[in-house]
């Protein structure tokens, strides 16, 4: 028997709305397999997103889901987790939503180390609205709002998450489909803020403008730039030029926010 994705998808929702070759579908499949591998029950799982193509994901998933305001997934998810700490809370969305418009909510959720898993789909662009540059569009690349090349330096989103205090940070790509579920599952099991950045492709608004001839070309690029952290240790800076590290980039133990908060309540009420 082939893997049954449809048990996790709301009836009648396929085919989905994403463009041909858009990596968001590959990520959604990985998320479904990860939740399955962790044995998550629908009634104890909440999936939260903001706005964007990537943020359409919860609409397809047959769990408790919340489609919120642009950039605010982490804020709404924090509310859910504080009210119901026994629930597994998962955020998903794009780089524009999570790290540009919602960058403030994102870094503070990382700082708090609240126990949730954030699947951040970085397709280097604001896809839904026609390809404006985001804070992760590489320097020099073309977007509808940077027709002569993006002058801005871009964020390394995994590094941003580590710097902001997330206690589990991992990265993979839409090409590395069989790693997506493993890293998300590890993130779900981790107690604290887990960020899984998935380098993704938007053929429609990013690929076309940046001279990728096809979806396959974009997939090949994702394959080429990825270097597992373990392999990178043995490589020279020249060999690592233009590459992106994948795998588990950071893991530490630090008090989790809901637990710290509960302790304060217990102490104050006991006094």
């Amino acid at each position: 028997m082939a893997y049954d994705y449809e048990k996790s998808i709301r009836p009648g929702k396929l085919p989905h709305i994403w463009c041909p070759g858009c990596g968001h579908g590959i990520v959604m499949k990985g998320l479904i397999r990860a939740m399955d591998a962790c044995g998550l029950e629908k009634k104890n799982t909440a999936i939260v997103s903001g706005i964007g193509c990537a943020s359409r994901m919860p609409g397809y998933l047959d769990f408790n889901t919340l489609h919120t305001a642009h950039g605010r997934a982490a804020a709404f998810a924090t509310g859910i987790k504080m009210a119901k700490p026994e629930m597994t809370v998962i955020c998903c969305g794009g780089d524009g939503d999570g790290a540009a418009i919602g960058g403030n909510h994102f870094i503070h959720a990382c700082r708090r180390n609240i126990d949730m898993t954030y699947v951040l789909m970085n397709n280097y662009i604001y896809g839904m609205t026609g390809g404006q540059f985001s804070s992760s569009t590489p320097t020099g690349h073309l977007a509808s709002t940077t027709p002569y090349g993006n002058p801005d330096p871009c964020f390394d989103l995994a590094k941003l998450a580590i710097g902001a205090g997330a206690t589990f940070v991992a990265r993979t790509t839409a090409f590395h489909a069989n790693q997506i579920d493993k890293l998300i599952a590890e993130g779900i099991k981790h107690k604290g803020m887990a960020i899984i950045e998935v380098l993704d492709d938007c053929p429609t608004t990013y690929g076309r403008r940046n001279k990728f001839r096809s979806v396959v070309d974009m997939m090949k690029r994702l394959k080429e730039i990825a270097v597992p952290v373990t392999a990178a240790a043995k490589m020279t800076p020249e060999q690592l030029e233009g590459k992106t590290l994948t795998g588990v980039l950071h893991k530490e133990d630090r008090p989790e926010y809901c637990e710290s908060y509960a302790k304060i309540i217990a102490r104050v009420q006991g006094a």
Partner: protein
Amino acid sequence: MSAKAEIEIIEAYCKGCSICVEFCPTKVLEMDAFVVKVANADACIACNQCELRCPDFAIKVHKL
């Protein structure tokens, strides 16, 4: 060689991106206009790569 899996294509979901065709290690799949088709069923080694990377839930690999 005999097929290690039976490939099911859900044509109504396939958007013709050709990711599955390109990365199948044994060239089992082919594009037919804008929908994928199984062209070389016997060569399938059941590696599951096509199913994992299909963004559109349009391929199922039934291991034999």
